[in-house]
Structures are given as structure tokens and as C-alpha cells.
């Protein structure tokens, strides 16, 4: 949290998704494709089956172009984006796991060199040598997955690491093995989904090859299912409760979970029907696309679930997504944000709105934009919303406006009670200043709640995973800072609650 902030109206999270989603799909395709292609070529040579070898060859051309170029660049891209949007967080990960990444790099070298050689030596070297290269490619690719998975699972379930801070405690954390199994299944599914297209192109052996690929897809789906169940079982009780049980804490996450499982079921059923039972159907493009979409949907759904269950942390119970360390909460609250980072005061301290804008960027912009994705303006009460509630014109619309704009923070009161407290519509229009004060008061109150939330983290036992369900805002880090920081942020946010103001401010990112 002590780095300068990179201004990005679209929101860092969105950018990360744009880079990371295609990357993980391609990366798993590269791993699964490595296995499928090596096995396919080996079977082709053993059984003297030119069709299988042709399939391996054609798939490998796609594999290389996509994985060595796009996969590699987007992999670096994840680092680039992470360094821009959450430098403190990525730095912390690197400082804890640099040897993990260094080891992954070794596998990466093997993977890339083998891929280039494999691609360039079709029809040029002996079959045995070529198969060897294919298998080495798989070793490299799978090795990278096995290593990187240790770091990714550590972020969600650091397990004993929270107590010992020991590399291997974090690496072989509770969800390590299940996620390895799950990702292995996903890799097979991704590869099968891609290879479907070269397989279906073969004129004579199309049916046979499609069945062959179908076998891989079904196997991948089943492995993924077992991996998923095991993964879920290994999540801590408190994390599971976010999306499981009678009344899950986060309804949206629960929805993501059922979406994920339905997509997996769809991939399995579509795979069995289209690829195994009526493989000829693949000649029409649509069934193949459906299988592919279902497989992607499952994988995407699970990644979202994983990321969602980790919020608001980047490393669970240790480091928040905005780069705030749990251990720094008290220090920043007492000394203030300005003492913590020089970037909070570059540009001067005279204008509270400007100071507040910087506080927003430093603490909130990792998740909220001003007017785009997860807009802070929408999360805050506005003048218009207040007016809509009091005016209640046409009758009944006030209650709806209350539900939409107020209820999330005012769970204890209902529409009727609220209106009693509120000034009338005419009063508001006459004296907007008064409404502004009311709005800024609400924001200040919310920020105070958010700051108090920090105490729960400070008091918690640091050696076990924190139960985010117990806080008022389970998806958000606490606000940190002294009273001046809080006031500045409230002043800035207050300017967003008036019509017109938000557009001016969204554009003013400079």
C-alpha cells in the first residue's frame, strides 16, 4: 500500500481478468495437450496408426503457436499487471515463494525448448527421438503446473504456514493435492476440447478419433469432479460456509458454485452423447462448440469460486488484496496513512478532496472503480436515491428505491421507519447542503464501521485462518488510517453522491 497508484478507470480487477482468464485456459491446454499429444503419438507409432500420428502432428502445430507465444507472453502479462495494480501484494508473494518460481522457471525452460524442437522436427528425425521430445515437453509443462499450484493454493489455504511461515508448510497446504488433481482433470478437458477440431477433420478416421478424444474428455471430467469434491472438503469450515449450507454467507458465491457443478455435469453429458455415442455429430460444428463452452464454463466457474472464497485476501489471513498486511493495521490506524506512505501526500495536503481521492486510490481502488466495474458511486447512497425514497412518487417507488439503494446498510429499519427520519422532498431540494451533510455523515459512519472491523483482525489468532463471516463486510478489507485520513476520504466520497459530480470525477483520473 505504499506504492504509487496506477490510474486505470476500467478497474485493475477487470484488466487482470482480461489477461489471466485466457492465460489459464491456454496454460492448462498446454499441459493437457502435452500429455494427449505425447500419448497419441506414442500409440500411433506402437500401433502403426498413421491417423493417430497425423492427429498428434496437427494438434501440436496449434499447441506450439498458442502456448509458446500467447501462453508465455500472457504468463509474463499476469506479472506485469499484478505489479501495476497490486505491487505490494505481488511483492510479498515473490519474497515468500521466490524459490518456487525459480524452480518453475526451470520446468518452463524445458517446456519451451521441447515445444519448439517438437514442432520443428516432424518428418525430420527418428520416431523414437521425436516421442522422447514430446514426453519431455509434458514433463516440463506438468512440472510447472505442479509447482505453481503450490503457490496458488497457498494463497487460499495457507494452513500451517500462518504459524510457521515455512515454505513447505505453505506449499503442501490443505488444498494442494486436491487442486493438483482437479487441475490435472481440467488440463485434460481443455486439451480434449481443443483437439476435438483437428480430430473431427480427419475424413476416414473422424469417428474413431472423436471417440478417442471423447474418452479423454470424460476421463478429465471425472477426475475434475473427484478433485473438486476433495478440494471443497479440504477448505476450512469457515471458508466453505461462505457458499455452502442452508444459508450461505455469500449468495453470489453459492450461485457460482452451483453454476460450476452444472457446467461440469453438462460437459460430461455432452461429451458422452456427442463424442462417445454419436461421434459423427461433431461434423456439425455446434456440438463441438457446446462441449468446449461447457468445459470452459466449468473451469472459469471454479476459478471464480476460488478467487471469491479468498476475498478480501491475496494471502488468506495475512495480506489483503489492496496490499495491506494484517500486521500493519494498528500501525497505520495510529500513525496515519500519510506517515505510512509518501505517495499519500504527493500533490499536497491542502485540498481534502484531493487527499481523499488519493486515500481512495490507495485503499479502495484495488476493488472499486469510480463509475465502472464494482462502482463505488453505486455502493454509496446518493442525493437522487434519497430523493426517490422520500418523494415516493409514484407511490410504492419509494420502497423499491429503499430496497435498491439503502437496505444493504440499513438492515435494521424498513422503508416506513426510514421515511419518518428523513426530511421531505421539498426540504431536500431547497437545502441540498443539509442532504450533503447527511450523506457525508453516512459515509463517515460506514468508514468508521470499516475501520472498527480491523480490530477483529488485530485480535484474531494469527496462526489459524480468519473467519471473514464474522465481519460486517466479509468481502472487504478494513479501512485503515487516522481520523484525518477518514475525514478526507469521506469528503471525497461525498462529492460522488451528487448528480453530475460523478461524471466529472470519473474523467479526472490524472
Amino acid at each position: 500500500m505504499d506504492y504509487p497508484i496506477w490510474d486505470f478507470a476500467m478497474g485493475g480487477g477487470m484488466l487482470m481478468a482480461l489477461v489471466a482468464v485466457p492465460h489459464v485456459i491456454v496454460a492448462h491446454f498446454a499441459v493437457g495437450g502435452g500429455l494427449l499429444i505425447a500419448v497419441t503419438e506414442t500409440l500411433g507409432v506402437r500401433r502403426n496408426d498413421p491417423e493417430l500420428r497425423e492427429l498428434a502432428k496437427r494438434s501440436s502445430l496449434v499447441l506450439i503457436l498458442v502456448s509458446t507465444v500467447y501462453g508465455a507472453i500472457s504468463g509474463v502479462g499476469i506479472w506485469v499487471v499484478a505489479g501495476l495494480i497490486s505491487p505490494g501484494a505481488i511483492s510479498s508473494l515473490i519474497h515468500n515463494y521466490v524459490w518456487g518460481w525459480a524452480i518453475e522457471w526451470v520446468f518452463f525452460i524445458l517446456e519451451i525448448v521441447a515445444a519448439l524442437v517438437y514442432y520443428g522436427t516432424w518428418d525430420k528425425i527418428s520416431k523414437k527421438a521425436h516421442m522422447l521430445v514430446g514426453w519431455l515437453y509434458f514433463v516440463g509443462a506438468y512440472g510447472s503446473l505442479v509447482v505453481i499450484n503450490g503457490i496458488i493454493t497457498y494463497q487460499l489455504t495457507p494452513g500451517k504456514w500462518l504459524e510457521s511461515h515455512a515454505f513447505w508448510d505453505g506449499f503442501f497446504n490443505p488444498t494442494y493435492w486436491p487442486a493438483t488433481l482437479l487441475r490435472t482433470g481440467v488440463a485434460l478437458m481443455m486439451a480434449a476440447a481443443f483437439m476435438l477440431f483437428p480430430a473431427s477433420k480427419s475424413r476416414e478416421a473422424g469417428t474413431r478419433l472423436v471417440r478417442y478424444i471423447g474418452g479423454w474428455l470424460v476421463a478429465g471430467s471425472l477426475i475434475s469432479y473427484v478433485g473438486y469434491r476433495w478440494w471443497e472438503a479440504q477448505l476450512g469450515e469457515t471458508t466453505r460456509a461462505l457458499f455452502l449450507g442452508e444459508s450461505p454467507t455469500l449468495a453470489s458465491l453459492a450461485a457460482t458454485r452451483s453454476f460450476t457443478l452444472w457446467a461440469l455435469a453438462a460437459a460430461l453429458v455432452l461429451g458422452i452423447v456427442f463424442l462417445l455415442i454419436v461421434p459423427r455429430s461433431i461434423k456439425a460444428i455446434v456440438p463441438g462448440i457446446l462441449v468446449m463452452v461447457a468445459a470452459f464454463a466449468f473451469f472459469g466457474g471454479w476459478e471464480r469460486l476460488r478467487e471469491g472464497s479468498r476475498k478480501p485476501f491475496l494471502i488468506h489471513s495475512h495480506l489483503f488484496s489492496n496490499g495491506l498486511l494484517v500486521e500493519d493495521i494498528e500501525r497505520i490506524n495510529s500513525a496515519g496513512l500519510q506517515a505510512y506512505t509518501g505517495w499519500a501526500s504527493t500533490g499536497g495536503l491542502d485540498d481534502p478532496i484531493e487527499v481523499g481521492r488519493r486515500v481512495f486510490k490507495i485503499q479502495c481502488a484495488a476493488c472499486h472503480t469510480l463509475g465502472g466495474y464494482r462502482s463505488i458511486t453505486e455502493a454509496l447512497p446518493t442525493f437522487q436515491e434519497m430523493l426517490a425514497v422520500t418523494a415516493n412518487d409514484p407511490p410504492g417507488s419509494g420502497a423499491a428505491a429503499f430496497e435498491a439503494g439503502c437496505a444493504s446498510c440499513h438492515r435494521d429499519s424498513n422503508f416506513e421507519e426510514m421515511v419518518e427520519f428523513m426530511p421531505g422532498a421539498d426540504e431536500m431540494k431547497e437545502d441540498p447542503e443539509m442532504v450533503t451533510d447527511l450523506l457525508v455523515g453516512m459515509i463517515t459512519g460506514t468508514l468508521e464501521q470499516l475501520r472498527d472491523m480491523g480490530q477483529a483482525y488485530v485480535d484474531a489468532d494469527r496462526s489459524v485462518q480468519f473467519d471473514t463471516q464474522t465481519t460486517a463486510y466479509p468481502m472487504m478489507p478494513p479501512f485503515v488510517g487516522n481520523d484525518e485520513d477518514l475525514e478526507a476520504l469521506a469528503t471525497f466520497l461525498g462529492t460522488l453522491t451528487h448528480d453530475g459530480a460523478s461524471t466529472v470525477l470519473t474523467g479526472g483520473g490524472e
Partner: protein
Amino acid sequence: MTPDLIPAVDAAGLPGPVWLFQFLLVLTFFLHLLFVNLTLGGTLMAAISHTLARGRADDPRGVLAGRLIGINGYGISLTITTGVAPLLFIQLLYHQFFYTATILIGWMWLSLLLFLTVGYYAVYLYKFKGAPARGRGGGVWLWTAAILFMVIGAIQVAVNLIHMQPGSWEALAGNPWAILNDPTFVPRYLHFLLAGVALSAMVVTWWAVRQARQGIDPDLNGTIAHFAWKWVLWASVLQIADGLWLTMALPKDVLLGLMRGGGATMGPFTVGVFFGIGILVMVARCSDPVTRPALVTATLGTTLATMAIMVVTRDQVRSIYMGSSVDLSQFVIRAQWGNFWLFAILLVLGLATVYYMIRRVLNEPAEGADAA
């Protein structure tokens, strides 16, 4: 109040001693730079040669362009692969400086990814749709790639200059383009570009000489060797002039720091300069490289050695630039020696496997039904 813009040292500390990571940073950066040079200098040289050949693949310069791009099809992948490690180690040692620098020119830094992707695919397009595949054309792709790679180089130089000079951050936060006004920007950039051209030209000369002496297309290879050798000559001449410019353009404290460092800093620097001049002398003494294969090989070796030494100097210059802004001893050291050894052993095994694989592939050529 003077706010401290340099972020705090990462509390997680370092899982090994500072010198180990410095060594790994310098070593892996050198590896990366080898491929960077081939990609950057090679693509530029290919684009110029292609243009001189009027886009024809049957002109020796067109053949040369095709060869350079043949190398680059693999070279770019290896540039990225070898770039990952120094990217990791610089984030480890200089995180406060590096991230800040990239954030200050965030858009440029991000667009590097786009330029790299487009540049890479442009190289493939030239290979499959241009002169190497069709006999002529494709210059647009080649120039696209060359220009994009040159821009990427400029972005990297900018990040480097910014990360070394925290004093410039506050001003740059308002106007990031001001980094182009740094008096060392241009000479530093040219230093890399010329090194890239020199190395690429050196490698293709070496290869053409080898082929010519093996009796493979001796005329064609002789012409190519001649042509590329001239590139080595001119790149070296310009490099020495530019090196002088860069040295003079360095801030006074930095230059003084380099001198005051004594043998530790002046040693490598002096040897590097000597080697650079040595290359020039070797190249200038020989007008027909095909007749002097040993000299060509020696020049290639010296070029590589010069680069290696200059990478050390570059790292030392960084430390001098940063001066008191950086104190690597602030890191808490929690060494994980077991993991280091695991890495080292896997690295050796991995490289041995790569070596073994390539040997097997070279030793088992096959054709027709016997081939894979």
C-alpha cells in the same frame, strides 16, 4: 515535510543471502540479453537487409534476412523464457524501485505486452507469408516487428532509468515522458541496440563462414559473410563512440562513483572497454572473413565476453546510481538453503536434459517412413 516516496522493504525478507540473488540476477540477465540481442538487432538487421534486397529472397541479403528470422522464430521464445528469471530476481531485490518505475509509466509498460505479441506474430507472418516462403515480399511484417521490438527496448531502458533514480519520481508522476529528457537515455538505448546488431551480425557471419568452409553454397555464404562482417565493423565503431558518449553523459556522481570503486568497478569496466576495442581491431584487420575462420570464432567469443563483463558493469552502475536510496542489508534474511539446492540441482538436471534432447535430435535425423 518531505514525504518518503520509496516504499518500505518487504517485510517477508529474502530467502537467501543478498549476494546469491545479485549473482542470479546478473547471470540470468546476461542469458536474457543474449537472446534480446538476437531478437532486437537481428530483426532490425533483417528488415534492412530485406529492403536492400528489394524484398527478394534470391538476393544474398534476402537470404540473410531469412536466416536471421529463422533464428528469431526460436530466439523470441527464448528471449521471453530467459527474461522471466531476471524479472523475478529484480522484483525480489529491487521491488520498491522496480514496481514504482513500472507504475509511473504504467501504460507504456502494459503496452509492452501488446507490442511483444504483435511483433512476435509479425515475425511468423514474414516467415510464412513473406519472402522466406514465397520468394518475395513481407517487408511490412518485418519492419513492424523490428520497430515494435525497438520500442520495447526503449520502454525497458526507461524503466531502468526510472527505477535507479528515485529522485526523479515526483516529477515523473506528473509527466512520465520527461524520462526521455534524461541525458543518458539515447546513448544508453543505442548501446543496447548496437550491441544487438553487432552480436546478430557476428552470429550470421560465423555461421556463413562455417558453411562456406564446409563447401555449402560457398559463393552465397561468402557474400553473406562479407556483408554481415561489415555490419560487425560498423556496429563496433559506432558502439565505441556511443560508449564514450554514454560515459560522459552519466551524472557526475555516478562517474566518480565508478572510478572511486577501485578495482571492483574499474576492473570490469576497463576490461570491457578493452575488449570492445579489441573486437574492432580484430574485425578491421580482416577483410575476408571466410579465409580467417579462427579469427571469426575468436571475435564471436570476445563479443560474448564483452557483453558478460558489461552486464556486471551495468549492475554496478545501478548500485552507484541508487546510492543511499537502497540498502539491501535492510532485508531480513531467512535463508532457505534446501530450496536453493533443490533449484540448483533441478537447473543442472534441466539444462542437461535440454542438452541431451538436442543432441539426440541432431544425431537421429531420419527421412520418409522412418521419420516421425
